């Protein structure tokens, strides 16, 4: 495997995947440095979510390398194994455990042993309680802790899912359209929160909302038809004629 992978937290090289002959991801290459935050943009169907599916083990690539931490081959692991390595994911459509309370949702995600016996005899420790309280504060759901997650608004579910992501204490966060369905104020707050997270962790964030991407102020990768069309600061890629043609110029 390539030396280019060395020192990176996430390394994709020439990754391809087809669904019934349709190439959703086509020779996609991408390198993320530790501590880096990267924004991914691209028109609908560009393959952004599919890329996350590949990294998190939901979809197996037909070819190409996917390496974590410069050495761990993610294509041989299952979803749970990849999550345990420290890769967390927030879904495009917010998915929380609807018949659990907000607090239980956080508890389930909290970094802890994941084995059957460990959870069977698990007893919430003081430090875990403190951590849960902190997280609820961060996502501003402290007063909703005993409410069933099903009763939350769309925006609140997004925040709960971000809270669950943080609870896992991942080293790499994959965040798919965190601002979808949020008010402008919530969107701005989400950008602030993500920037806060990016101080200590590596983040890949997919988003359509350009104001949001501008707020983040990070390197942008433009995906189109399953491969990278352009990469660089937002101002630079949005001046790129190819990008304008497929994405911004529509």
């Amino acid at each position, binding site marked *: 495997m390539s030396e280019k992978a060395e020192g990176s937290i996430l390394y994709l090289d020439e990754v391809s995947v087809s669904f019934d002959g349709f190439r959703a991801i086509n020779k996609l290459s991408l390198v993320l440095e530790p501590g880096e935050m990267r924004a991914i943009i691209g028109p609908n169907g560009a393959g952004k979510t599919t890329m996350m599916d590949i990294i998190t083990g939901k979809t197996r690539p037909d070819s190409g390398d996917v390496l974590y931490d410069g050495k761990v081959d993610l294509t041989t692991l299952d979803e*749970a194994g990849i*999550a345990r390595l420290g890769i967390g994911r927030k879904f495009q459509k917010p998915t929380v*455990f609807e*018949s659990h309370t907000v607090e239980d949702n956080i508890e389930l995600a909290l970094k802890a042993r*994941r084995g059957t016996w460990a959870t069977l005899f698990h*007893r919430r420790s003081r430090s875990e309680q403190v951590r849960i309280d902190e997280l609820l504060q961060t996502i501003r759901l402290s007063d909703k802790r005993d*409410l069933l997650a099903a009763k939350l*608004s769309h925006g609140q579910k997004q925040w709960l899912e971000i809270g*669950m992501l943080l609870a896992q204490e991942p080293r790499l966060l994959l965040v798919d359209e965190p601002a979808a369905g949020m008010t402008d104020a919530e969107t701005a707050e989400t950008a602030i929160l993500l920037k806060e997270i990016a101080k200590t962790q590596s983040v890949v964030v997919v988003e359509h909302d350009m104001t949001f991407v501008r707020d983040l102020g990070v390197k942008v990768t433009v995906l189109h038809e399953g491969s990278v069309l352009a990469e660089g600061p937002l101002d630079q890629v949005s001046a790129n004629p190819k990008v304008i043609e497929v994405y911004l110029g529509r």
Partner: protein
Amino acid sequence: MLTYWLTNGFDRKAQIVTAVLVALAIVVPLGSLLPPDDSVLHISTYQVTLFGKYLTYALLALAVDLVWGYCGILSLGHGAFFALGGYACGMYLMRQIGTRGVYADPVLPDFMVFLNWKDLPWFWYGFDMAWFAFLMVILVPGLLAFVFGWFAFRSRVTGVYLSIITQAMTYALLLAFFRNDMGFGGNNGLTDFKDILGYSIQSPGTRAGLFAASALFLAFFFVVASALTRSKLGKVLVAVRDAESRTRFIGYRVEHYKLFVWTLSAVMAGVAGALYVPQVGIINPSEFDPAASIEAVIWVAVGGRGTLVGALIGAVVVNFGKTWFTGMLPELWLFALGGLFVIVTLFLPTGIVGLFARLKSLRKPPVAPVAVANQSGGAS
């Protein structure tokens, strides 16, 4: 660790259920044995046996609720585990007959003599010993469930497909046990039992004892199920039920959790079957009938899925109905059962328990609803 686990699980619901079952385990045997036959307090042996049978059904329903109500695995084959536990117990009871059979063979059960068999098949060895038989009551259903679950859950068979293969499993066993050369008595099954643990199986005292055992085993497993569902593992199970793939993405090996609860549930069903057989006095392949497994699911739906106590209530209520109906209008029972299922699914999705919960909340003054901003249409 274990004490915390049990005390945490021993909530008010579990306390009430345990209290009721322990009380039944004392009162019913006393009512059967102490008052004279013509007293109003007397409970006939027939009734003791009937109620005892309901309790074993309740244990089967509890097993179904654990996998279906909490983990979303709709098993349409739990009757297989129940029947296997029943057969293990029946084999023990057959070996207790000894020379009192029609052919008076000291070792071979009657049906084997009838088939002209000379030796006891190897898989009948050990069943003359109660401890061995009891071990098999647990091991055989547990092992079958483990192997079945290992393959099914690892290859991520879920939903309707899983339900269908559970049906196929019990149907395959039905056909196998019908065959005489399987060595389980063919379509007649195992019957004409004489003793259990040295006591005459027909005597009122033994009947009372079997009833008490059924009640106590049910109480025991109820506390276990309650502790389990209230533990963090129980929360993971519900998470799997609600959003399986999400659970994987936060690092839980879903197949391990399913396998654990599935196997435990099968063992519970097996114990239920083992308690059932000495009370009804027979075990035959009809217990493997897919329809029997479906009935167990209906009990849970009627009582209230995912509540544990609903499974018990549903099993007892529906079977009371069945006893009454089959006495009055036997040919209509299946229609009544089908109708009941449709009504519950359409109008009472939370079953009897849910109905009571709703009535209770109607009587109380409504609590001020928690303000929930809902900008974008809520649940998606």
